[in-house]
């Protein structure tokens, strides 16, 4: 009796092992599907056109053409687009974090009657599709003479990222103990000093999370720049590479190199900060 039971147990564990292996292979296939296109992109970014058109797309680049990167960086204006993306992203992220922190502080720490209503207004903003606002925004900026001016992009990024940023900050502010701030009030500390020297430093972890999420959104944004900006000198990478590819349609190496340049900063940020990114995406999405 004891014998049969132990054999049954063994069978079971073999079955489980086989089942687990099958599942595991499934997971790995999904991972390959997710990562291989990017490896392939990296490969063709290093190829010459004769390699792209004359050989298998799966062949490794024979003589890696790093000059593809150098060529698009300077000749293709990619350096200009890149730095535009950097400064516009940075300014927008800083503005969003500052304004969102102000609002979250006022809503969670200060006493006023309309705070729930104002919070509600910010939260409803999460649901508004950008596309439903784009036409009036265009004519609004046209009237203010801000079309083809980076300010229109920065203000739009800030406004549309505020609801999500406030939502993520809010959860953190609620869990933050108030004793330190209360003690500071008793000591006669001014409200601005409390905000800038006590509260803001205490929220660094969540600020880092929201900063990285905001950074990714702004870096990748397309429709605002495509609509509001017309001159090359203000274009960011997403719209810039779109133009570039329109001109170099058949130059695969150049296209691959521009795409790689546009995604490398994100990949580096992900390598360093992957846990924060995962946390931010999970936190920012669930309430939808």
């Amino acid at each position, binding site marked *: 009796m004891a014998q049969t039971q132990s054999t049954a147990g063994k069978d079971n564990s073999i079955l489980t092992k086989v089942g687990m292996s099958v599942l595991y292979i499934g997971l790995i296939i999904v*991972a390959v599907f997710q990562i291989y296109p990017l490896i392939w992109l990296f490969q*063709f970014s290093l190829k010459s056109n004769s390699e792209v058109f004359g050989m298998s797309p799966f062949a490794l680049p024979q003589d890696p053409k790093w000059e593809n990167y150098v060529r698009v960086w300077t000749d293709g204006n990619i350096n200009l687009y890149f730095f535009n993306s950097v400064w516009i992203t940075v300014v927008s992220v800083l503005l969003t974090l500052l304004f969102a922190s102000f609002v979250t502080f006022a809503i969670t720490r200060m006493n006023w009657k309309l705070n729930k209503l104002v919070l509600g207004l910010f939260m409803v903003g999460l649901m508004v599709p950008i596309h439903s606002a784009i036409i009036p925004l265009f004519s609004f900026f046209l009237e203010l003479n801000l079309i083809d001016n980076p300010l229109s992009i920065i203000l739009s990024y800030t406004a549309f990222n505020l609801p999500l940023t406030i939502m993520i900050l809010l959860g953190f502010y609620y869990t933050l103990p108030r004793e330190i701030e209360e003690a500071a009030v008793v000591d006669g500390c001014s409200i601005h000093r409390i905000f800038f020297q006590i509260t803001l430093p205490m929220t660094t972890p969540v600020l880092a999370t929201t900063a990285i999420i905001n950074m990714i959104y702004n870096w990748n944004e397309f429709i605002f720049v495509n609509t509001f900006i017309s001159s090359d000198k203000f274009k960011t990478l997403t719209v810039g590479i779109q133009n570039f590819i329109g001109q170099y349609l058949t130059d695969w190496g150049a*296209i691959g190199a521009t795409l790689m340049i546009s995604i490398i900063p994100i990949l580096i940020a992900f390598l360093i900060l992957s846990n924060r*990114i995962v946390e931010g995406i*999970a936190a920012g999405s669930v309430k939808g």
Partner: protein
Amino acid sequence: MNKVMSNKAVIALYVLPAFILIVALIYGPILITGYYGLMDWDGIGAKTFVGLDNYMELIKDAKFWQSAYHSFLLAFFSTLSLVPYLAISLILAGKVKGSDLLRKIYLIPMLLSSVAIAQLWVKIYDPNNGMLNSLLTMVGVENPPAWLADTNLVLYAIFVAILWQYAGFYIIIYYAALKGIPESLVEAAKIDGASPIQIAYKIKVPLISGVIKVTVVLAIVGSLKYFDLIYVMTGGGPNGASEVIASYMYKKAFDTFDFGYGSAIAFFLLLITLIVTWITRKLTASEDEIQY
């Protein structure tokens, strides 16, 4: 304490910058969109009030309904795709070695811009030198299709790129929710002799139903708003075969300068989005407070 923390001037100073921004750039514009929808306007010249003409035209516009059909088709498939995402998350949240690394690999495409993703997939689908058709030719398929130029296939080809982009996003959400389930519940079920499949289906999935409903909203609303990827990959073509609501709106407004008609479409898009969100919120009202 109360005196310092009730200073009206400070409250105004802290709240107003953000408040003015969202009123001027989000709430104002969406209301004005509805108003512009009542106008005949090229975006620059004078506006002519035409009442509900744009909206009446919209109802009769076969191209608009075709693009709306495509949007809803994408919403339907995106919702269906949540099932395999949930299955993958259930496996990952079990005790799988390397689940951390796998999750991160799954997420990478989600972090890239839609423009980069679109351009990459244009190359993957390239009929002559693309990865996909080379692979198909290698396994013996003769005359593989020209994916993005085929009116019957283009929408599905785009949908595969969308799957690639968003898989990691939903897996991360489900994974976080599943990790929030108390271990004791699962242990208790194991002691009662439940199989892993029973535990997944009867205990874990019901426990995260609130999150599942939220992802359904995200998938539907997200699909209705799809724009960047399709605009860059095909521009809605060939012959409107991949046109969606947002790309049709954008074309009408910024390519043919029919701002009035474009606004009517944009307002319609807003209404659908809000209605879908509201309906699904109603269904999830009791579980609104779940947090992970």
